[in-house]
């Protein structure tokens, strides 16, 4: 067992920086989050000005007047933590939520798949950075020890600088401890202030003269239990691995939904881009984790009631709240973040906001089992299996590209504006064809060759049909013994009699090939029921 604890020390601040595009906070702008008028966390720029956690609001503002101050929002924090947990689910099936600010991942079982600790750690780092978090990690054979180590400042890592103390105790390929003794020595030297126990207990330790963990672990269990309580004894035993420490791993829900609330209300569609990306990132992590693809997503925007004009065709009353829905269909189910994002942006372009958006929800509808792409076991791609989560969408075939572009066109131009063609089983010309939905045309892989070979035998030649069909036949004027449609028409061939459909609206027609006086060829018919003439097609 090898546990990794991913701790997000600035989580109360991160959640505001992520969603707040109205006033973008750069890394240099001081910012802090308050809890009951006390500084809970602050960023490095604020810390440089002298702001410290625990400081009162007035002191902090006196030290650093330009700092952005936020009130703590635990709802957002737990949502952000859950989003990150979904994304981490693709690294290991054992992801444990440890509120308020950390995740535990059991990575001992998946080192082989990701080819070593260093590579896996890089990917986990990147995931945390993508989600906009500053993070610290700790490694240990027990969950409690990992959590303890992640608190220690030494293990703080820079994005591209993977070097930390607790990692060096483990074999990079197997994840086993190199030497149990050295690791225990390291644990024993840890300061007691980092322990996950109450402040009173820590005060007691200090009063007794205990400074590091080793001081406590050297004492007999019975004496510790008597002085500091049974619970603390259990904690210490679980820390060292003497006692089992069962963890409750997250399970992905059967349906995905995510919601973000905005305090200020969003008034422009550009500002929606970031929260959208955040929700889609969460969706993408969820889909990867459950190995699903999605063919339809639904955005629901909660609009505030102020400034809403009464005539909003797509806004509706739902539980006393105005909402607006955007539904995106995809020709083929997929789980690509970029594709979700670009399609959502396209839809945003057409959106006109009449009132501020207070909340944004994302629902994934129509989930499909992902079609796993097979890779050659001995082929050149065998290496890349471990990273296929990232790269599975980069190896687009031409067909995938077509699907993406047709999706894009359909999103911008409207649902019904992109379609395929198909023949229908009918001898009545206007019923002999039909439109085909996109997913059927993009899936056809084998071109039909039988029709071409059938053509070469002239004995079985199909009847003449025009390449253009008029959806509504145009009447042709009959004058004397002549036919006129934008000029005189001359019949060349025919008649070909087509009758039928007596059970609905009976038709009886004689079809002719006609030539316009300028040379164009048309497909005409005479309705035998009322003797009128129509143009039904053009020989393009």
């Amino acid at each position: 067992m090898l546990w990794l604890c991913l701790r997000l020390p600035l989580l109360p601040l991160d959640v505001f920086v992520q969603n707040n595009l109205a006033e973008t906070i750069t890394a240099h702008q001081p910012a802090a989050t308050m809890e009951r008028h006390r500084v809970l966390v602050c960023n490095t720029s604020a810390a440089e000005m002298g702001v410290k956690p625990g400081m009162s609001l007035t002191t902090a503002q006196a030290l650093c007047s330009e700092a952005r101050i936020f009130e703590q929002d635990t709802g957002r924090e737990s949502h952000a933590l859950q989003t990150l947990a979904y994304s981490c689910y693709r690294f290991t099936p054992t992801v444990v939520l440890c509120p308020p600010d950390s995740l535990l991942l059991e990575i001992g079982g998946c080192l082989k798949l990701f080819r070593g600790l260093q590579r896996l750690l890089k990917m986990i780092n990147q995931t945390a950075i993508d989600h906009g978090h500053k993070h610290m990690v700790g490694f240990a054979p027990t969950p409690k020890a990992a959590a303890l180590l992640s608190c220690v400042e030494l293990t703080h890592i820079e994005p591209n600088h993977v070097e930390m103390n607790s990692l060096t105790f483990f074999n990079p390929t197997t994840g086993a401890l190199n030497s149990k003794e050295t690791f225990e020595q390291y644990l024993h030297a840890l300061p007691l202030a980092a322990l996950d126990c109450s402040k009173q207990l820590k005060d007691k330790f200090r009063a007794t003269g205990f400074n590091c963990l080793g001081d406590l672990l050297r004492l007999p269990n019975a004496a510790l239990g008597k002085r500091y309580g049974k619970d603390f004894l259990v904690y210490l035993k679980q820390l060292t691995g003497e006692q089992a420490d069962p963890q409750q791993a997250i399970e992905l829900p059967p349906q995905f939904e995510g919601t973000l609330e905005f305090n200020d209300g969003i008034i422009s569609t550009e500002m929606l881009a970031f929260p959208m990306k955040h929700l889609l990132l969460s969706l993408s992590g969820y889909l990867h984790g459950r190995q699903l693809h999605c063919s339809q997503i639904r955005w629901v925007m909660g609009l505030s009631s102020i400034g809403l004009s009464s005539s909003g065709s797509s806004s509706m009353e739902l539980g006393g709240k105005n909402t607006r829905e955007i539904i995106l269909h995809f020709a083929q189910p997929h789980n690509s973040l970029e594709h979700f994002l670009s399609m959502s942006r396209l839809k945003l372009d057409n959106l006109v906001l009449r009132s501020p958006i207070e909340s944004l929800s994302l629902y994934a509808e129509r989930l499909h089992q992902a079609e796993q792409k097979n890779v050659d076991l001995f082929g050149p791609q065998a290496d890349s299996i471990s990273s296929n989560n990232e790269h599975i969408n980069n190896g687009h075939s031409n067909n995938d590209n077509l699907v993406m572009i047709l999706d894009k066109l359909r999103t911008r131009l409207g649902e019904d504006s992109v379609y395929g063609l198909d023949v229908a089983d009918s001898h009545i010309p206007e019923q002999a064809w039909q439109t085909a939905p996109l997913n059927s045309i993009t899936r056809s892989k084998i071109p039909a060759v039988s029709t071409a070979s059938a053509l070469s035998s002239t004995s079985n030649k199909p009847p003449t049909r025009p390449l253009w069909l008029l959806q509504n036949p145009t009447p042709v004027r009959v004058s004397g013994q002549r036919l006129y449609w934008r000029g005189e028409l001359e019949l060349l061939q025919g008649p070909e009699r087509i009758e039928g459909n007596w059970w609905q609206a009976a038709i009886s027609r004689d079809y002719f090939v006609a030539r316009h006086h300028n040379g164009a060829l048309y497909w005409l018919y005479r309705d035998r029921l009322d003797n009128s003439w129509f143009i039904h097609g053009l020989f393009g």
Partner: protein
Amino acid sequence: MNKNLSALLARPDIWQASASSQQTHGLDTGYPALNKDLHQGGWPPGAVIELLSDEFGIGELNVLLPTLVQCARQNQKLVFVSPPYMPYAPAFRDTGIPPEQVVVIQTRSAIEQLWAVEQLLRGDVAGAVLCWLAHGAANHHQLRKLQLAAQASRGMAVLFRPARSAAEASPAALRITLSPTPVACRLHILKQRGGWAGQVVDIAYPNDLTQAQIPGADLPVHRPVSSPAQKPLNKFMAPDFDEQGGWTTYLLDEQFDVFPDKSHPEIDNILH
């Protein structure tokens, strides 16, 4: 020749009027006469082709049909952007294009139209993109954008435009006006990048269409007694499928044709 000069002349973007070399990297049109007049030996790939005509039903698709069939056989999609009428699936099937290879895109405005074509060309996802533009729907800048997008694609990019657009300058690599004659669609090459323009080619209609039958006597049929087109009708051969399922074409009779066949070496000599 000067060494520098010969190096300069070897550049592919320098065109010499005296060079009559037929390059062969064009897409086969299926009509030998047309292939001969297109200096790349066929439709230029990765470039915009403009077909200018006011009429529909004059065999404008028939001109492209052999190439489209080839595309469809290679499992490439044919995309019709805002076609003037509905492409009729049974007819496409009969000519050898499986209907599922055809994608139709309807647009509401010229801006959407140009955007859709550009997306399709940039993505290089279709064997052929055919688009019907109204007069004045695209300015020179927009056409140039399409031409640049087409360079990213390996397929055909065809714009159908009204005949009066011929008067406007266009960055398209190939511009051809189409006009109907009683038996053929007449192609007049207006502009050809890197080659001579001005050639006229007739692409005959399929002969099973233009072969006149005698309709029933009770029909209101106009039968001109001395129509110049009526008499030689049956003498003409039109493009048709041969036994292998490929395309063969037959040139028109010389009395109707303004350009010579290979079987007239004396005229060839005069021309070259």
